[in-house]
Structures are given as C-alpha cells and as structure tokens.
C-alpha cells in the first residue's frame, strides 16, 4: 500500500504532514525516523494521522523531506510493546459510571481489564498520553463539568480514549481508579517509557498491593521490566 501524505506549512517554522490511513504505531515510527535522521528538526508532535515538525530551517528541511519520502519504503514494521499497568479501582466516578451504563462495578472492572488500549500520542499535559480502545459498553463522554482536582496517576476515560493523569490537575474524564506507577519523570531522558503505538493492559490490585508496588516503582532501576509483566 502506498503511503499517501500532504504537506501543510502553518508558519515559517512549522510544517504538518498529514498521512492517509496510518496506524498510531506507524505514525510514531515515521516521526521517530524523521527526528533521528534530520538534525534540523527541533521538535516533533504527532497525533491523529498528522506529524508536525518544528524547524528554524524549514525550507531546507522540506526539500530534504520530499527526497526522503520519495525513496522511503512504504511498508512499516511498527514495533510496539505491551505494558501491564496495575490499577486500584478506587475511582471517584465508579458509582456514576455504573449508574449511567446500568452495569455493576464488578462489570466495569471486568470490561476495563478485558480491553487492550493503543497509545496514540501525548497531549494536554507533560506525560499525558491518549490511548484508544475503550469498549462501547463502558464509554461515556467527558463529565459535563470538569473536576477541579483529579488525583495524580488517576486512570480515566472519555469519548473512546483512556488516559492516566501524570499530575494532580483539573480534568473532565471519568475516573476508574489509580495506578501506583508515575509515568512521567522529568529527570530522565526520555522522560517516558510508553511510546505511541504501544499496547496497554490493566490488571486489578488492592490497596496494600498498591502501596508495595508504589515502593517498588520508586526504588527500581529497571521500570521497563516492572511494566512488561503483571506484578
């Protein structure tokens, strides 16, 4: 299949490249290739089939990109990982979700854990990722009025997307529970483990397990290992 795309220059330093029919992992893979190949790219943002490049030498970069895309192989082997995320179902919105969807809290947990979620990119806040794949039997729109305080590490969903709040903030998503893992670390480079295209699975833990996993996470030197299996 041919990789179809269109260039949109938005400003003298910002170029969006819109791809037709591309997976989140494919998009992330191209973005990564572009960034490592062209040193004149200062920043890259990708979401919803669009890669946006920031460069102070955009004219030169566009010429190089045309050449690059002309010769690029059109098949991608998106390499993604699957991460296992513990969740303590203590969410503020569990009861409300149960009432609105006319299901029990146990069913909510079951549907949530059955799902596999695909990370599509970061936005909103540092380290806040969007993941698709929320089951229709669980899905709800954003709350009509956002909560002033959503606790850090809240696992929440809205409008078909799953996310984890990296910090305490205001927010309007429906909160299922809390994960003991902090997924954004500004002192590390890269500051995140989860990449666009990666798959997420959730498993239930209780309060005491939450505390022990929190301690393990904070003191671990290999967080990827912890995240790659059910603890």
């Amino acid at each position, binding site marked *: 299949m041919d990789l179809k795309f269109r260039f*949109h*220059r*938005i*400003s*003298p330093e*910002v170029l*969006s490249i819109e791809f037709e029919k591309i997976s989140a992992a494919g998009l992330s893979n191209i*973005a990564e290739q572009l960034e490592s190949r062209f040193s004149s790219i*200062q*920043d*890259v*943002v*990708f*979401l*919803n089939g*669009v890669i*946006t490049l*920031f460069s102070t030498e955009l*004219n030169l970069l566009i010429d190089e990109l045309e050449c690059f895309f002309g010769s690029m192989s059109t098949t991608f082997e998106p390499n993604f990982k699957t991460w296992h995320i513990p969740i303590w179902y203590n969410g503020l919105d569990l009861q409300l979700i149960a009432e609105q969807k006319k299901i029990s809290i146990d069913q909510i947990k079951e549907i949530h854990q059955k799902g596999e979620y695909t990370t599509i*990119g*970061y*936005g*909103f*806040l*540092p*380290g*806040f990722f969007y993941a698709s794949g929320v089951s229709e039997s669980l899905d709800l729109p954003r709350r009509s009025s956002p909560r002033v305080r959503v606790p850090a590490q809240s696992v929440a969903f809205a409008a078909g997307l799953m996310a984890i709040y*990296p*910090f305490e903030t205001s927010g309007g998503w429906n909160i299922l529970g809390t994960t003991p893992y902090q997924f*954004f670390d*500004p*002192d590390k*480079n*890269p*500051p*995140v483990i989860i990449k666009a295209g990666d798959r997420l699975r959730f498993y239930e833990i209780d309060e005491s397990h939450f505390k022990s996993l929190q301690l393990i996470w904070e003191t671990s030197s290999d967080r990827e290992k912890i995240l790659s299996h059910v603890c």
Partner: protein
Amino acid sequence: MFVKRAGLSDTIQDSGRTGFLKYAVPRSGFMDAQSAKRANTILGNDPNDAVLEMSIQGGIYRFDSPTFICVSGAKMNFTLNGKHQESNNPISIQPKDEIEFSQATDGVYTYLAVKGGFKSSIRMGSRSMYPSLFGVSRLKEGDMIEYIPTDPLSDKIDGNTSDRSRNSKMVVYPGPEFTYLKTPEQLGDLSLKVAGHNRMGIRVLPSTYLHRRHSTIKSSVVFPGIIQLTPSGELIILHRDCQVTGGYPRVLLTDENGLNQIAQRRQGSIIQFELADLANYLGE
C-alpha cells in the same frame, strides 16, 4: 539573589526548551522575549540567559554578592536601597543591596537580568519554570536564586535604551482553519478586548461574532502564536506555556513580534488586528 518578598507571579525564564513537545512538554520561555533579551544584551549576556520574570507586581530581592543588573519590559517603578532607578540601564550591585519593585504602571511582564544570567536549576534542558516540571508555579518568599558574582570594577558595560511602541496593530495571518471565520476581510476593523491573561494564553473578546459555523476540530497541533476560536466566540492567542494539541479551530496565527506585543497588553485593554499575507510570511 534572595527573595525577600515575592511578586504576584515571579518565575525564572530563559528562551525555553526544545525537543520535548512530543511528550506534551511546552517550550515555555520569556513571555516578552524582546524585552528579556534587551535586558540581557545591555549586560553583555547571551540574549537567552535566564532572567527573573515578574508579572504586574514585583517583589523585594536582596543580592549577596557583587554584580550588575538590568530591568526591562513593563514599566514598573523600582528602587535600590530606597533610591529610584531607571530601567534599560545597567545598575551596579553591592552585597546586601535590596531592589524593591512596585506595581507595573503599564504592560504586564517586567524582567530583571543579572550579569551572566541566573543559574537556577535546569529541567529538560531549560531553566524556564513550568509547574509540572518544577513542582511549583512561581517563586516564593525565602527562595534563593544563584548567579555568578562579578567584580563591578572589572566590567565595562554599554547601555542601550531602545524601545518600541506596543500600541500598534497586531499582525495576524490566516491559520489552518481560517475558513471558520465569518467575514475575515473585516478583521482589521474589529476591536478586541483582552479578557484574560496567563502564560498559557491570552483571551480576547471580539466586538462582533466571528463564527461562520459552530464547530470543533479533530484534536490538532497548536503552538505559541496560534489563535483559536472558542465555541463561545472568544479568541485565545496561545502563548509560551500553551498545550501542544487543541480541539478549537485555529483560525489565525501571529508571529514572534505579535507574541511579544500581546504579552504586554493588560486585561481590559483594546487591541486591533491587521491581517497580513500568509504566503509572504512563509517566504513563498
């Protein structure tokens, strides 16, 4: 430098961070880069060196080693040990000197640069304070900001006091969703009232309704300079700490000059746009 009394919203800013937008970390940096860079340049610093950014109301700061400082940006009266000082001018500082700022009489952001720049902590390649990276959103009383002492006698510094008009029209260009605007040819006649102001963006209320149609868009990339049209009819001029994606139509766009200019326009003030040619701006 010791913060004896913090201002309303003091932060340390440099020219910001690059390379982390992909994790939704904004670039941040000086709100009015022109003024901050002027203060640095007057001291012979790198224009991108870290400065203290004060907003509307400055504080009281004590210096514990010799240096030079320079104040630029929004007009804010200030004293050195009780004696009135001029901005855009290098000021020699001795140990135990105290600088006290009052309220800004015009504009929003005032900058205090120190010789060699502030050496505060660096997060993700920049000293620019951003809440979720630094754990705090502003400086507070008792904070200590490092700088490298300079012997006042050994440095000769040239002053430079150029200024510019902030009240001219703000140049804007068509944004990706320009067609969402009704009667764009009349943009230049609009008066726009500044309704809200922070480091993420500046909200302005147009004097007439601008929608051609009601709509949000698929979440798309945004950056400082993008102007969004909200469902309620407000325009948001996104600024240095803005998010990386947004769902409102990106109807217009301004440039670096426009960003510096709007940074200094206070809540309640009236601005005007001047629509310019995008192809020209893009250098096509």
